[in-house]
């Protein structure tokens, strides 16, 4: 009832876009680069089929709250929703999304084609990697390691393969070139967690142990955080407030040598109107340390809410939008694909030089823990990581406190 009331207030405007009796589709997309291609695809679908498409663009955090309100109260305001993969476990519980298994069966198919990169398909299943499909992957986002290839060549260094090499290279090139050796996102919340996860995994730690208990107080996790602080020494002062914009600004302005970054920032690096480093940057895999380096997955998925009255049409649209032909069109528009065949397309490789690195990163990328409580866990973890980076808490205490808080979150929600 309460959700219904809130949803009613929030969704009134969206609801106005669809008049009664109209059989068009309403699509909720992220108001950013990730949503651009799906928005264009919706226009193309309208031209192709005559189905009226209403696109509702919402900023990242609003998209989450409006979609979840719609799912919980089953208002049917949206027929297709675009979602960030960490939201999926929260969305896919309690029959809030339409299972795609039956829809595939209805068309005489087993399920999504094996052409989709496995890591992106796994996050569309509930439970992860084994359960039914509730979404299809549309944006193949995973972290990449950006480094100044020209400067590494100048100092006869190879692309860093380990985090130790990253720190050594950062110190050497940084001091010689009077630049910041490294730059990272460490604003509290999602930003600092996203940049810390590859370090945590590479140092042999994880947020949860194999028996699903919080394990952030391990010696390996402490080593990873201490290493993050060491990287902080060669990162611009004030990085504890940095998000993607600030990190990329340092790379574009040629004031920093390396960083973890996302595919959306590959284009601007080679854009003469924005960048001072056109053609000078290299893209490689996330460095290893004790374990092989793995990027954090940040795929965007498309799904059909169970409240939708146009399930068949919506399924037709998402299958078409994620088809190889259409995904190639979207890739030319700047959307990172989720299909092997599209990544291997010669025309695309010629246009996007980072495609081979992106494909490799995506194939081995690791998702964030698959729990409906992720937002709360990420928030508290981010607070303590931020405190450690601000040097107001030592790494051991910060991780111990984070571990305690995460344990409390889980026991509260049991």
């Amino acid at each position, binding site marked *: *009832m*309460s*959700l219904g*009331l*809130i949803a009613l207030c929030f969704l009134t405007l969206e609801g106005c876009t669809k008049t009664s009796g109209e059989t068009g589709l309403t699509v909720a997309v992220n108001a950013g680069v990730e949503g651009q291609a799906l928005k264009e695809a919706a226009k193309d679908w309208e031209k192709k089929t005559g189905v009226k498409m209403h696109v509702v663009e919402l900023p990242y*955090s609003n998209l*989450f*709250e409006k979609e*979840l309100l719609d799912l*919980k109260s089953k208002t049917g305001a949206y027929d297709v929703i675009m979602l960030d993969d960490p939201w999926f476990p*929260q969305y896919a519980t309690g029959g809030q999304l339409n299972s795609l298994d039956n829809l595939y069966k209805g068309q005489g198919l087993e399920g999504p084609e094996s052409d989709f990169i496995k890591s992106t398909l796994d996050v569309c299943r509930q439970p992860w990697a084994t359960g039914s499909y509730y979404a299809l992957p549309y944006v193949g986002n995973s972290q990449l390691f950006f480094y100044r290839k020209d400067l590494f060549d100048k100092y006869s260094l190879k692309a860093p393969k380990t985090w130790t090499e990253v720190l050594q290279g950062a110190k050497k090139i940084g001091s010689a070139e009077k630049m910041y050796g490294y730059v990272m996102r*460490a*604003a*509290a*919340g999602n930003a600092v967690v996203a940049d810390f996860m590859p370090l945590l995994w590479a140092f042999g730690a994880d947020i949860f142990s194999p028996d699903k208990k919080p394990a952030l107080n391990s010696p390996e996790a402490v080593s990873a955080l201490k290493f993050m602080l060491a990287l902080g020494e060669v990162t*611009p*002062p*004030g*990085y*504890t*407030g*940095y998000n993607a914009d*600030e990190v990329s*600004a*340092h790379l574009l*302005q040629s*004031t920093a040598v390396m960083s973890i970054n996302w595919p959306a920032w590959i284009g601007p690096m080679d854009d003469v109107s924005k960048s001072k480093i056109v053609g000078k940057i290299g893209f490689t895999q996330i460095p290893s340390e004790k374990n092989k380096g793995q990027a954090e997955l940040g795929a965007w998925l498309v799904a059909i809410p169970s409240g939708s009255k146009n399930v068949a049409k919506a399924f037709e649209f998402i299958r078409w939008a994620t088809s190889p032909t259409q995904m190639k069109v979207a890739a030319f528009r700047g959307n990172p694909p989720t299909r092997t065949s599209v990544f291997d397309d010669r025309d695309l490789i010629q246009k996007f030089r980072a495609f081979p690195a992106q494909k490799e990163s995506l194939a081995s990328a690791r998702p964030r823990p698959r729990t409906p*409580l992720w*937002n*709360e866990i990420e*928030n*508290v973890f*981010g*607070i*303590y990581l*931020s*405190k450690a*980076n*601000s*040097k*107001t*808490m030592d790494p051991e205490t910060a991780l111990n406190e984070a571990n305690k808080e995460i344990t409390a979150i889980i026991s*509260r*929600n049991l």
Partner: protein
Amino acid sequence: MARRRVLWIFPALLILVGLSIYPLLYSLKVSFVTIQGDWGISNYTRILRDHLLHVSLIQTFIYVTGALTIELILGLFLALLVDSLGRGKYFFRGGFLAPMLLPPVVAAIVWRLIYNPQFGVLNSTLKLFGVATEKLTWTSGEGSAMASVIFVDIWEWTPFMFLLLSAGLQSIPVEPCEAARMDGASSFKVLKDIILPLLKPTLFLAILLRAMDLLRIFDQIWILTQGGPGLATETVSLYIYRTAFRFFNFGYAASMSFVCLILVSLFAKSLFRMLKMSVV
């Protein structure tokens, strides 16, 4: 006759019940529902143990008192200054209001760019004057973040104080001030013994309005720091928003909102009492 009166106020009553009273009672009910859907007072008992909430309450208190005190002093100073001008009063009154006309979100985005330690205009300007800006990280520093967000509020909302107090000053009769001056009272004495006592009702009103606005601060902090670094700028409204719309725990968010409502009501009541006493 009485029935007819009720009929006339019925539409207004309906709107009030539908849009204010029913949602308020409903959210009170929600505040007793746990995340598992059970009934109980666990949301309220959690408030006593939740140290993240306690930290955010302290931060809110620092934010409100810091911003309010400076805005009040600056607003009063500017109002007195402009009021004493022979010419150009209207020009300055209009000019001082400019920051207040900007939507808070726009002001916060502008200040976020200004505060950027490496590319922002603030550090670049300070550098021109020979200041070492390497460690001036403004919103990114745990020690400086709160002061930086308070400064943005002062920049944007001091004009509001100025406007209210200016109006208050204009309503003060000139005769008592002139009589005091003729009797040889200094400007300070006139201010202390005549202007400020007569301005008290306006001062209390300004404090009340501004304090209530400051207590529910959200947009500026969300854009400038999102509550970080760490918990340095986390305020109650940010924490309640996250609990409701990021963690989807409406019960706990509602219980925190009610506790805040009680605290704000107590504050407002004590201020009203002071106002009443000052007027009497």
